[in-house]
């Protein structure tokens, strides 16, 4: 590939570089402005629109009610509890995978990621099949408990967001400097002390990042609360209610704006931590070597097996239900649910695959470059760019989708030609999941010491050359992970696209929702199984391609 990219050969005047960097940063900010901020501003404007002109009447109407305070309380209660449980469980699991000599690591890792392969609805659906009032457990044991409500939401949400937190911790725990651990051992520190003084501090950033990601995912998810929440209403379901049920865009946008509030706090906090974080891989680093420890390894194997059992049983029961004649009354094997009689049959699956591929291509470039620029360029645009990059995490998908309709469905708008295309749905997915993709990339980028860049730059390399020679070789596995991440999310996402689908751009996850809504629970399960099959197939293909190019040692999803 020599000469395929017009690389400057050290002849570029060095004083032009800062200007160039600012321009690149600005160029990266433009799509974020167009596809995130512009629709949000539209929504914001709508939230101030009242029959009597601009005003705060919508806000007063929503926030003045007791019900709203209850919703806020419910949302935070569920979200905080879910976040704490998920972060603790996922940290332990990632630790088991990266820092112990547990057997079957790859299998455990794959099982932990299964929730990413299916629409979030499936977690709740599996939970109801298993623990519902007429679920497997109650039917078998003759008990009579109900999963609907608070604990239903918490359990299904933990299962839903577990892989997100795991991915971040796993990426962070994968990198470590063996010298620190050697020193700690030689100085006589026990494993616990080493954990508290070396491991935990070195994963501070991942802890903050995953808390942030999990928190915002849970507080804005409406799929799980809708299926198992019963009457335990949360803010996200209220947005769904207000907009879908009552065509009340103004009130829906108010609550959407209220959901944006936590992000400001999270961003400020994360920024503060960020300034204090330091790279843990430097030029003298040695890769970590994990020594076997029978007791530790056995405990972590049991722990991981338990978590995998929980994940597998919830997804497994959905797969099982898709092959039964009529759950839970006629359990004999049947393939009849795989004769999809929805409009367009299996076409939505192909649409989803197309969208997923486009989102992966666009997403890896957008999130990867954004992470690189904010981490390495140190321009004046850093802070605003960083804010733009993570703002989507706090935007409920349906608010973003609604914003796309309100903003782009106007013939005068330059984006209008894209409206009603699969490509706009792909763009919407990229920017809806931008924060997570960006954080995965930047968590990993943060751990590459600046001294690499400084050395490279001192030796006279331009930043493009540094990127090529230093950053990309280190980042490559993470970028593949980011691409796979965008593909998987696009295959299974529901909330952002529900407003953007048109008759010719129906997507698979929405088909699952419609089938579920129609009561074809087994068929919905069957469609989910197809989605999971596609995601797994793509993972296998990506694995084979990586192996072909000699990256056999690299784990695909980090």
């Amino acid at each position, binding site marked *: *590939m020599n000469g395929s990219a017009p690389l400057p050969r050290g002849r570029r005047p060095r004083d032009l570089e800062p200007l160039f960097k600012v321009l690149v940063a600005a160029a990266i900010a433009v799509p974020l402005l167009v596809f995130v901020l512009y629709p949000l501003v539209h929504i914001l404007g709508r939230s101030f629109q009242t029959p009597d002109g601009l005003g705060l009447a919508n806000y007063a109407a929503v926030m003045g009610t007791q019900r709203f305070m209850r919703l806020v309380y419910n949302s935070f209660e569920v979200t905080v509890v879910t976040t704490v449980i998920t972060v603790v469980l996922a940290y332990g699991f990632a630790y088991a995978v990266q820092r112990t000599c547990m057997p079957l690591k790859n299998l455990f890792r794959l099982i932990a990621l299964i929730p990413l392969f299916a629409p979030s609805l499936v977690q709740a659906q599996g939970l*109801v099949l298993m623990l*519902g*009032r*007429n679920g497997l457990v109650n039917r078998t044991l003759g008990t009579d408990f109900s999963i*609907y409500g608070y604990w239903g939401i918490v359990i299904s949400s933990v299962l839903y967001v577990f892989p997100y937190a795991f991915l971040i911790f796993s990426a962070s725990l994968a990198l470590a400097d063996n010298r620190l651990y050697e020193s700690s051992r030689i100085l006589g520190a026990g494993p616990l002390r080493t954990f508290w003084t070396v491991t935990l501090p070195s994963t501070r950033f991942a802890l903050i990042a995953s808390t942030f990601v999990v928190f915002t995912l849970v507080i804005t998810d409406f799929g799980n609360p809708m299926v198992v929440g*019963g*009457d335990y209403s949360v803010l996200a*379901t209220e947005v*769904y*209610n207000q*907009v*879908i*049920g*009552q*065509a009340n*865009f103004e009130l829906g946008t108010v609550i959407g704006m209220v959901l944006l509030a936590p992000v400001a706090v999270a961003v400020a906090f994360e920024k503060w931590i960020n300034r204090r974080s330091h790279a843990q891989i430097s030029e003298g680093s040695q890769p970590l070597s994990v020594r076997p420890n029978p007791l530790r390894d056995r405990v972590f194997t049991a722990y991981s097996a338990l978590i995998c059992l929980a994940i597998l049983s919830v997804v497994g029961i959905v797969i099982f239900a898709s092959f039964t*004649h*009529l*759950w*839970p*009354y*006629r359990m004999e094997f049947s393939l009849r649910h795989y004769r999809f*009689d*929805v*409009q367009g049959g299996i076409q939505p699956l192909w649409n989803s695959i*197309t969208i997923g*591929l*486009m989102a*992966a*291509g*666009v997403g*890896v470039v957008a999130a990867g470059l954004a992470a690189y620029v904010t981490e390495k360029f140190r321009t004046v645009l850093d802070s605003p760019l960083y804010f733009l990059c993570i703002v989507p995490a706090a935007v409920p998908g349906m608010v973003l989708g609604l914003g796309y*309709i*309100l903003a782009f*469905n*106007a*013939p005068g708008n330059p984006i209008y*030609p*894209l409206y*009603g*295309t*699969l*490509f706009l749905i*792909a763009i919407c997915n990229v920017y809806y999941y931008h924060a997570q993709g960006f954080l995965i990339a930047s968590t990993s980028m943060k751990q590459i010491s600046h001294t690499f860049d400084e050395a490279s730059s001192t030796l006279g390399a331009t930043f493009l050359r540094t990127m*090529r020679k230093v950053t*990309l070789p280190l980042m*490559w596995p993470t*970028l593949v992970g980011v*691409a796979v991440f965008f593909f998987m999310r696009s295959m299974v996402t529901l909330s952002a696209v529900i407003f953007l*689908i*048109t*008759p010719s751009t129906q997507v698979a996850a929405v088909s699952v929702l*419609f*089938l579920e*809504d*129609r*009561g074809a*629970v087994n068929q919905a399960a069957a469609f989910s199984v197809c989605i999971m099959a596609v995601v797994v197939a793509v993972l296998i293909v990506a694995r084979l391609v990586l192996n072909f*190019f000699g990256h056999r040692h690299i784990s695909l999803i980090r």
Partner: protein
Amino acid sequence: MTMLGSFALRCMLACAVVCCTALGFSPSQAHANEITVYTSYEEDEAAAFLAAMQRDLPDLRVNMLRLSTGDLHARMLAEAANPRHDVIWGWAVTNMVDPRVLAMLEPYEPQGIERVPARFRDPEGRWFAKTGYMAAFCVNNEVLQRRNLPMPTSWADLLKPEFQGEVVMPNPASSGTGYLQIASILQMKGEDAGWDFLRELDRNIAQYIKSGSRPCNVASAGEFAVGASFALRAIKNIDEGYPITMVIPAEGAGNELEATGLMRSSRNKEAAKRFIDWTLSEAAVEEYYKWKEIVTVSGGTMPESFIKAGLPEDIGSVMVDMDFDWSAANRDRILRQWQDELER
């Protein structure tokens, strides 16, 4: 190949994909025989209707978007500046008469409109209703037996203390079926007595569910004993083999009509009119009788399975005489009061 090589390759591939899709998926100019139809007919019935339509009008290409009543309302208002569809087909009259929706419609008198009785048409010709649906309970026989509950026959039966936590109902704020149920109760009993009844019923309600068909589905799955839903869902679930009984409330069944209208903004009115004409043809009416409990156009008989499921042949005898104008005019106020008092 170097790492950068494959990265560059990926970038180029991504750009190629972007360009191809931007070009390839741009909204093509509407073909002469292509229209977009928005509907709230259930997925399976809409598919059957379209298949029949395709036999009669093989050259007409219909892109159909199926969303539930409330979803479609939200979507059409969001797209009002530049509507994407040519026809609204089979959508609740209560929502259709929203002034913001009416303003989007163009008066049109399709061939055969005289088959639709005048009371099922807009006086100004903007919509006509040829089908409808009515409220019914889905009662799970297995759960009744297990919990030793009597078979309920009326709304009043659902007030019995033994049904506490066993009844699910749609949330009227999001579900068209939910709204027609409480509107029928308020119309039958008068507003004061009606609200008292709803407050009392609330004590036994396990959940208000955000869709009209789900209460029947969760009752069919055995999660709850009684799901207040609509008749067709019950009939279809009985066909599927679920152990449920359809109960039409003795007080009378609330009902809703499904209307059709032509969009003023349609870029392909000739094709849209051909489609609307077809919806009143013999073949269409024949299909309605196979799928709908209420058909306003005469010329068919009720299928055996409907009667076996418990639907009376003279369906008018069990239906509440709904005042749709009242339902539409008071929708905002009733929903607000329901939310203030009863929403959870």
